[in-house]
């Protein structure tokens, strides 16, 4: 059980540092209150370790995240943006997550217009009991943007 988990026992395999062009990226993660934010908390309760490069913003539903918010974050210098919602069927608001899924398609098209790599945006499902999955998603996302050059929109 979680109380007995030590960080070393649950540490996820990290990416190969040699591949990294951007060793210290910043990722914005929009997490829905009911599943993914809870899963993120469970990763904590279970002491699962992932890189400290993400900043989580709690939203009530993944379906609440406007595509402009994703694009704004990326064009203001975020190296990556992640939206996490409940698995299909688990949405607290019937099917807000499916609406997020549809919008993600539109967001992917917009990335191209802004000259952004597709790896900079992801939509993932994480349930309230999937602490390990949350940590794994974070690790993958962060490793993914580390392999890219720093965002061309980054200032300062």
């Amino acid at each position, binding site marked *: 059980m*979680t*109380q007995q988990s030590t960080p070393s026992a649950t540490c996820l395999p990290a990416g190969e540092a040699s591949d990294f062009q951007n060793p210290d990226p910043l990722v914005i993660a929009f997490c829905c209150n009911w599943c993914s934010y809870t899963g993120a908390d469970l990763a*904590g309760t279970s002491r699962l370790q992932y890189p400290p490069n993400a900043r989580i913003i709690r939203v009530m539903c993944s379906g609440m995240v406007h595509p402009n918010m994703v694009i704004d974050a990326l064009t*203001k210098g975020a190296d990556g943006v992640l939206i996490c919602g409940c698995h299909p069927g688990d949405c607290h608001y019937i099917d807000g997550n499916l609406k997020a899924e549809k919008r993600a398609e539109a967001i992917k098209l917009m990335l191209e217009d802004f000259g952004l790599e597709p790896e900079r945006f992801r939509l993932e499902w994480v349930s309230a009991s*999937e602490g390990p999955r949350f940590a794994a998603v974070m690790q993958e996302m962060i490793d993914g943007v580390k392999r890219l050059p720093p965002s061309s929109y980054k200032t300062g």
Partner: protein
Amino acid sequence: MNSSENHGKRVGAALVVGGGIGGMQAALDFAAAGIKVYLIDRGPCIGGVMAQLDKTFPTNDCAMCTMAPRLVEISRHKDIEIIPLAEVEKVEGQAGDFAVALRRRPRYVNEKCTGCGACLAACPVGKLKPSDDPKKPQPIPDEYNEGLSFRPAIYIPYPQAVPNYAVVDPERCLHLKTGKCKLCLKSCQAGAIDFAQKDEAVSVNVGAIVVAPGYKLIDPKVKPDYGYGAYKNVITALEFERLLSASGPYLGKVLRPSDKAEPKRIAFIQCVGSRDSERDYCSAVCCMYATKEALLAKEHLSPDLQCDIYFMDLRAFSKGFEEYYNRAKAHGVRYIRCRVPKLGEDPATRDVTLTYLGEDETKHEAAYDLVVLSAGLRPNPSSAALKGTLGLELDQHGFCVTRPFAPVDAGREGVFVAGVFTEPKDIPETVIQASGSVSRAMELLSPAKGELIANKAYPPETEVAGQEPRAGVFICHCGTNIASVVAVQDVVAYARSLPNVVHAENVLYACANDSQEKIKKTIVDKKLNRVVVAACTPRTHEPLFRNTIREAGLNPYLFEMANIRDQCSWVHMGEPLPATRKAKDLVRMALAKSRLLEPLYKKHVPIQKGVLVIGGGLAGMTAALTLARQGFKVHLAERDGALGGMLRRSRFLFEPEADPQKHLAEVVAAVKAQKNITVHTGAVIEAIDGFVGNFKTRLSAAGQPAVEVPHGAIIVATGAREFQPEEYLYGRHAGVLTQLQLEERLAAADWRSKAPRTVVMIQCVGSRDEKRPNCSRVCCGAAVKNALKIKELSPETNVYVLFRDVRTYGFKETYYTRARQQGVVFARYDENRKPRVAERGGRLAVTTYEPIARTEAVIEADLVVLAAATVPHPENKDLAQMLKVPLDPNGFFLEAHMKLRPVDFATDGIFLCGTAHFPKTADETIAQSLGAAARVAATLAKDTMELEANVSQVLDDSCDGCAYCVDPCPYKAVTLLEYMREGAIKKIVEVNESLCKGCGVCQATCPKKGIAVRGFRLEQISAMAEAALAPASLDPTPEPEPAKEEVAN
């Protein structure tokens, strides 16, 4: 049944015994109805077995996702007092006024505990490793993980446990055993550990008691031939559930115990401990949980994983179950029909071997890496004591005995029961019974509602409009949970440097009482108008802090939390510098949002107390009666000319004392005599408008002018009908009947004189086929019931039942056994080779293929009785459209959530019960109708309804009426308005705040920033993102070394 005749004292409080999902539902329903609740559990926390489940069938929903919000709601509810580690010792008094003596065992941890977990790590018992040396102390098996992992002697049962306090295991605590150790005491900075605690007597005064003590799995050791305990790779289904769970012993990895290898072949053995001579009942849930576990195992490991389920009858009898079973077969789960006699173990590989006799009557051998025993359910052994303390009648297995037509009455007035304690059952039926118990209790307690609930007085709110933000930032150490990783002092210094911050300080435990007082005092002294707390998670602690600032006169929505523990210090333990930087960012982000917060107010709208019940069968009448007895005015609309529905055709039940027609007559008479019920027969519903609390329905009754009735809630109880078979010569030969027609014949006086020589029953007529995939649930029971009645009236009549699976779930199994003992012949037929019925010289000839003998047999019959499906009314479609509620693919009404909201629609204020939901028995219908009524009573308990503050708001200047947001709204809360301004047609959308739930799908759809969820507006969320991205050059403090003295704190 009518408790309102008793005019004694009524206490506005209730005791709920058992904190599982049933007890939790009862507690929430009572509290919503204005009753103070004492929720007791024998264990250290609430949650029950459901908290151990990974997913739930048939939707594979995550169990904790659906349950956790309820746990939090209960833990924060002002009118629910949780009393853990408690048992009922004595009950005196009578219904309406019970004096209950409870005994509470010591926890050795008091309310100062913050659940931080420091003591868990300090406990030396938690560091023990299993050893083969019997002299060495062994580690403590963790109950939550079914012994698959170990826990310390001071522990928190599971991460989301409520109350989230540690508890000391007195059997294994070194200090309590030897007087030494006390390492936990030293580790606890909150001062919460108290070894001086003793057993405590607690007395409570309540008006009613709901008993929901739950169940345990039958110990598979009752079947020694399965080798449970001896063979390492033979485990129970609940152990397997923990293996599947991401919070389980291997974090969701399915590994077999002997060598921690991933299994490639898994067998599930059904009916372990049930459906045998000692426990002649069916545990009702195992077929589906095995199916679920097989599907999930394939998901976790590989689609090619071999999953074999050894079963006798596959009992997929509830909504969506048959479809789930079909899906499992399509995914390659193999179902093998046999009773496995014995398991063996290969000593070298530890693989499990089994030998069985297949349907072809030949011997088969198989080997598996892992065998899962689908152990049955038995009442919680601790509930045996309730026989003495509460005077309950228990059967030979320890189940609580209830009477027909009174499924939640415990047999003592004022005491009600729910869950597996009365019969093995699934989660939704437990939840239904729990709500139903509350409705029965409220018939008694409604005069006392509101008398004992807490009315909290707050000081007047400080006006903050137009003021520049003045923020106070409080950074929590959480003992060492945050402070050992994050340099708290640096974060405080950083926060002080940020714009609008007039106060920043660190606190040892932000949630502790002293810190709360400090926050309140600072708000007043420094005239704060924003408060930011950087600590654990807002999911559990935001309500607490909001309440704190409200107590200091601030609007509760001027609060924001930064999660620097669960999402920072705990996930970056080895990286103090980046973690500190992240904590600062999170504080800056919270502060950025807090600047844009504004006071929000919960609106109150008046509600209509009336209820419209649609359908005057058993379901509608039962719901109407219980509501009327609680003082609600009910309009009961029945489309037929008379009340009674399908029950009019029922002549007897299994229990000889049960007379459906007598019960029906009593209920109809009670409905007609009830002054609070207006009956509309021959009713047509013309229109339903409005929303929860404020509906208006236009209905016309036969020969009457249409009337418009206002009401606050709706119950859909429109029932179902018997399928009219098109096959087996039905309608073409007088000897072919449906089960209902047979029942009518059996009830007639002349059965004996005209008793047929042979009756053949054919099951699944119009169910479980391509057109109607669902099982009709009640037909197997009806066949067994009628077969027994035939044997009772004319024992010489030969009775054959041709079936696909005999689905006599729960206690109906006993009658199935009895029918076989009395000579009823049950013969299986294959879905691909259905029986054929032909007329032969006036008699009927039934030809059936016998899968075991692999030959066709012909039975000459006088009567052929068809188990015709129970099918939904075609009119359901119109009503569903009128109410804007969904139907399932089979045409039955679809509830909001299959497990936890079985009587609610997703639309607030509309509920369902009876066979409109799915085929069910009379008792199941009664329980669900009572349950729906309880949910209505909870909705309409107050004179006004409080609406959520965090809902959508239209920004008039920005909305141009494009209406993009109207269709996506899952609650149909947004509508388009057109109006004239300056001679032109203008358009704008409008939000109905009674319907809106604040999901924000509208704001994400809007191209013009014309609609937004209060508290989650685009600017507010964007401000957080921008703050996160603020270039480091704006950071006023240089990157500091973590201050060592802080780390040690």
